[in-house]
């Protein structure tokens, strides 16, 4: 079967959105450029269109047309990820699949050599549509002979969702009737051609190629050559990217000892890192799933201080993690999945000079602490912009160790120590008040706070930092002054 198919997923971003937000299906829905009032509407479903919402409207205007409108952003990353997922699914029907770079949502499939698998081109086309439907996408499929011909016919729209073209001439004839605005041309070219009354592929093919090149540049000229058959445009299948995974099955000898398990893991990490190096990538994180006997599996996420190609670093982290949270039962199977990023050149630099203070060593130490005590274990205090004492600082995870900047020694100052939570006091505190009351109030828009602060020196000589909470009508100890 020397054929080629094009599968078109119309309004692809909208389909992605509705797949993500399943409850929106019966409602007017739109893909917007940005989730803000002035964000532009990019795609709309039929219900939105019936309510008067059209691509190009502002989101706020669209909402004023129908309060029921549901809208969301579909990022290029999400489109890319979904394209990859669909391409993977289509590879079950042919090894050569090309997601069309010029039009997200269009896929080319190579049918050569598949006659043994599919009795006819029509059966193959049906299988393609069924596969896409399983993925949750509506599609139009054309089985033809050239990339352009199949693409144009698939994009034509209409009620017939599967078109199998008899021969190359039939494909050419069918393609010539396809409206140009279906082909994802550059908007400027598309609009200009529409003004000229050039509406179909056939009209376009009738234009003089030199005149097109002069007026619209090489791309338009190339498209003309392809549309008229003057230029052959081969399929450019994309090789599938295998995830870097490893699986160790211990069915016969389930392993309950952490040290031995670590040794087993070491043997699996070697090939994993070799695979990463071959791709020019480094390991950013390792997902490890331990399948246990009789009890549910245990999952771990190990993240080195920085992307690495050093198995030793990872082994140390695995060691700490297994020590702090050993398997709850004997391990029947280990599944490892590497999450990678492109490796930096310096990671491979053997002569990388070490600084006197080694920030990498500090980062590794922190990574070890995280591996040992959990990912949120290492934090640092930061100043925050707030009026309440507890709102004037906060904690945040420490990603790296900054170089210290010691300040010159200053005059000794009083230190206030805060309780993690203000302590409620049973009665009005006794002692000598030192000034006040000082009032801090706010938060009226959410939970109003009115505190009257005072410093009180006790008979024992301690200086307490107190406040009276007006709303709650009681005293609290915020901290002490030393």
């Amino acid at each position, binding site marked *: 079967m020397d054929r080629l198919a094009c599968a078109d997923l119309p309004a692809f971003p909208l389909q992605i959105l509705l797949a993500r937000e399943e409850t929106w299906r019966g409602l007017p829905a739109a893909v917007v450029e940005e*989730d*803000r*009032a002035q964000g532009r509407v990019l795609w709309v479903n039929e219900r939105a269109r019936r*309510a*008067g919402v059209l691509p190009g409207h502002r*989101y*706020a205007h669209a*909402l*004023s*047309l*129908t*309060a029921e409108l549901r809208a969301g952003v579909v990022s290029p990353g999400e489109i890319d990820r979904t394209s990859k997922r669909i391409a993977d699914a289509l590879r079950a029907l042919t090894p050569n699949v090309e997601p069309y770079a010029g039009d997200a949502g269009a896929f080319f499939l190579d049918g050569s050599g598949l006659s043994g698998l599919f009795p006819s081109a029509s059966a193959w086309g049906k299988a393609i549509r069924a596969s896409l439907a399983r993925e949750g996408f509506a599609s139009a499929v054309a089985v033809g002979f050239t990339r352009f011909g199949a693409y144009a016919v698939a994009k034509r729209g209409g009620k017939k969702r599967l078109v199998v073209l008899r021969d190359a001439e039939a494909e050419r004839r069918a393609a010539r009737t396809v409206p140009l605005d279906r082909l994802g041309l550059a908007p400027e070219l598309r609009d*200009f051609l529409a*003004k*000229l*009354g*050039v509406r179909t592929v056939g009209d376009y093919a*009738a*234009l*003089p*190629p*030199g*005149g097109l090149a*002069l*007026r619209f540049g090489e791309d338009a000229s190339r498209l003309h050559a392809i549309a008229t058959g003057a230029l052959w445009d081969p399929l450019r299948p994309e090789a599938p990217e295998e995830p870097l995974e490893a699986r160790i099955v211990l069915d016969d000898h389930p392993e309950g000892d952490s040290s031995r398990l670590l040794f087993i893991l070491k043997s699996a990490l070697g090939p994993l890192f070799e695979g990463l190096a071959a791709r020019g990538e480094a390991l950013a994180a390792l997902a490890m799933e331990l399948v246990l006997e009789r009890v549910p599996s245990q999952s771990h996420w190990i993240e080195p201080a920085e992307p690495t190609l050093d198995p030793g670093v990872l082994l140390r982290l695995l060691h700490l993690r297994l020590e702090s949270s050993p398997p709850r039962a004997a391990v029947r199977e280990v599944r490892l999945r590497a999450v990678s990023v492109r490796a930096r050149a310096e990671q491979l630099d053997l002569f990388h000079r070490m600084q006197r203070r080694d920030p990498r060593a500090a980062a590794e130490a922190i990574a070890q602490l995280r591996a040992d005590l959990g990912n949120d274990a290492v934090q640092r205090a930061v100043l*925050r*912009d*707030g*009026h309440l004492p507890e709102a004037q600082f906060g904690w945040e995870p420490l990603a790296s160790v900054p170089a210290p900047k010691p300040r010159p020694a200053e005059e000794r100052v009083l230190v206030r120590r805060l309780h993690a939570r203000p302590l409620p006091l049973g009665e009005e505190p006794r002692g000598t008040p030192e*000034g*006040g*009351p*000082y*009032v*801090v*109030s*706010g938060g*009226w*828009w*959410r939970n109003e706070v009115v505190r009257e*602060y005072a410093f009180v020196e006790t008979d024992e000589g301690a200086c307490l930092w107190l406040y009276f909470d007006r709303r709650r009508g009681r005293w609290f100890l915020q901290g002490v002054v030393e």
Partner: protein
Amino acid sequence: MSSTRYAALTCKSHFSFLEGASHPDELVLAAHELGVPAIALTDRDGVYGVVRAHSRAREFGGVHFIVGAEMSVDDGTRVFLLAQDREGYRNLCRLVTKGRLRSPKGESEVSWDEVAAHAPGLLALWGGERSALLGEPDPAPIAGTLRDAFGDRLYALLARHRRAEEVPSERLLRARAARYGLPLVASNEVLYHTRARRPLQDVLTCIRHGVTLSNAGRRTKPNAEHDLKSPVAMAALFADDPAALERTLEVAARCTFSLAEIRYRYPLEKLPKGMTSTEWLRHLTYEGAKARYPNGVPKRTQAQIEKELALIEELDYGGYFLTMHEIVRFCEDQGILCQGRGSAANSVVCYCLRITAVDPVRMELLFERFLSRERAEPPDIDLDIEHERREEVIQDVYRRHGRTHAAMVANVIRYRPRSAVRDVGKALGIEEVALDRLAKVLGYSEIRREDLVQAGLDPRVREHELLLVLANEILEHPRHLSIHPGGFLLGDEPVHDLVPIENGAMEDRTVIQWDKYDIEELGLFKVDLLGLGALTLIDRALRLVERHRGESIEMATIPPDDPPTYQMCCNADTVGVFQIESRAQMSMLPRLRPRTFYDLVVQVSIVRPGPITGGMVHPYLRRRNGEEVVTYPHESLRPVLAKTLGVPLFQEQVMKLAVVAADYTPGEADQLRRDMAAWRSKGRIEKHHERLVSRMVEKGIAREFADAVFEQIRGFGEYGFPESHAASFALIAYVTAYLKCHYLPEFTCAILNAQPMGFYSPATIVEDAKRHGLVVRPIEVASSGWDCSLEPDLSLRMGLRYVKGLAEGDALRLIEAREARPFDGTGDLVRRARLARDDLERLAEAGALDALEAGAGGAPRSRRDALWQVRGLARAHVPDALALEPIDAAPAFAPLAPFDTILWDYRSSAHSTRGHPLEPLRDELRAKGLPDARAVASMPNGKRVRFAGLVICRQRPETASGVVFMTLEDETGFVNVVLWSKVFDRDQLLARTKSFLGVTGRLQVEGTVVHLVAEELWEPETSRMPARTESHDFR
């Protein structure tokens, strides 16, 4: 000893934009109520609010008001300055002006040396968290400078807002004050008159910094201690240092300056040798009278002239009239059309000086409305100037008076419902999309719960509830300062000695810190120079008449009471006619049937919220048509209401009514007028309700009439016309109507060139002109100018200005190349006009190149061919003509169908001379049984009709209880559609969004006035969708 009296010396009102949260009025009132004997207004780098505070303090008598300001210094610190005397106030104004004029709009900065140089008459309070006394590591040099300049008038300012960090600051302040020998004075920073305004102050702070309340951090104040405190509270707060508090009274006692001391003199024009201003004014008036009354000045008029001149002399207003005369003379010399509006039209002196154009004696207008001894306030002359040339007049005023003696009056931009919900909502962290939805449903008054519900917000949700409360609270708060459209303050002494001047947003504009109400309050003179498109239209039309017909006409020489002109008005054939062209005016014209100039004055005034909400329209029409007997609610009102058949229609009548029927004194009646004018200040009108109605009832006037009069007063508060103003506008209306009636080509050409102006889009004006038989020719590069023009046969040639996106400079380059030598083809045009590709394509799409290279038999070629050709030529970029030939033979593109031709016209130039968008669809529409507008107009009352047309106007007036009016247009005319609120609510999607709309309804025919009362809206089904027209949508 503890003091129970103190003066609040550091108070900021909401004129410290987006910082203070109370009106100056509120601060003074609160001081009065709390028993604070003196209060100083010290807004940030300005005295914006002092006039309001001053007049409020005068009302109460017991509050001593002090003028001051907080000055921003160039080291980032602040100091408070208070005016002790007139010299001090002058220095304060000068210092603020210095700081403001050198800084970008909204900012100010002065140096310490400048502060010191302006010290005479000022008193300085130095302290607070943003002061150099606390903030600088070593403030000794500054302290030395200030002490040398201010001597014993320099105080250290001690503030306590119950903040823990103030304790060490105060320790430092006391130490430094002792070191520099400064007496301590206790005064807190007051930002609101009551603690209840604290949330609003937080919100204002968030708006200023562009943050939400949740992430504002320490930008907001930490507590609610910035209120105006009672003497007892302050005494408690400073119980440990009563002397510092008592010293506030000493400071207040040293500040004796009052704004009442401002003695203003109007600048004198240059006078002929040996003449006083009174003599010169008398001379000019009688010279003017000779011209106005060529057959001799009537006795009554002469008596009026004498009466006015005597009063002008007595009140010493001669200079003002001479200035206005100078401006008018400048306009005449420069050929700029201008005309006085407003109450000046009541003055025969203004008429003789050519400031106004309506003879007040003949019109029996009331001079006292303009100027009266009792009122003792300067006259207010507003001058309308053709809008395109107003800037020339403004620059002339600057030139003659100098920038030091002339500055433009401010216009305070205040929060309105839409801006209020957007800004407050953002501060509350509500989604922009939701705020946008809410803003779209709001009217012009307060924000209601129903509005929130309509926008899909739940007023029970805390944020939304706060939005409702705070957005209403922020209404009327100033947001920033803008420039009044044309108000000038002119002074005999430099203006910056009266009030600070700052930069306007527009280049070369300076603006004072007071608005027109402040000017009026202080009795200062203001000159208003306003732009009016209709005068531009008249000027252009008159010039065209002279050029093309050799007839020299002036506004003054246009025949009065021209029957064809009035007939045209009676037929509501008034597209483009000033003031009487709107849908509502058009439906009133056939009912009122104006036959005289005074009828037009009434016509201009009657379609206004005042008479409409007062229920005066129908009684007037019935009486005019003889369907109702003319009666008066009380015999004493006959002289007041006789001119308008017993129904009050004008502002003057309402004032006279108050005097005659409710025993208002002239002063009270004038206050009523002011309260009507200040309609946005809630409650100012309401206070007259009981007084007016009960007094009228006591006099035996029916309560219903009394209530109706009050309703009308309230309506006038929105938009009401004084009779004199209506007369000035009616004159322009008459002139434009006359021009339309007798000089349609010139009128149409002028109005198209004066756009944007008026009620209708250029497309509708063109269609209307075509229906009147005017030949309108399309834009054409071989003959169009930038403006529209008239051809020798008086057909109208559309101008290049109507090609969308084509800049004037590019068009002029094309014209210049054409004038050098006519284009011999498209290639020649491309080469010589040097237009960008986009411009060439715009011209091709507009059909402006069609005739340049006519096809076989001289027929214009297709625009598509032109488009293809210019794209190729522009891309080739070859300077040589031979090389401009396209590479391939040009393909044959299908010519545009008539439908597409019109569509392209609208897309490229927003109008079509070749046809109405519905013309090519008429057969289709007829086949569906849909009549055209002309047919609808002749159908009988009550007939059920289906009609389809293009929407050119949507209107939902607040006076119409939710009724929506739409005007639909086709190639034969208009159909006015009325949508009751239930129909609109049901079909609002269609009503709001569709340009081509179908209506099923029943006809309501009253004489020649036809309305289609809609029962259902629908989308017409045609083979093609017609071009989208521009609709003017109003509330």
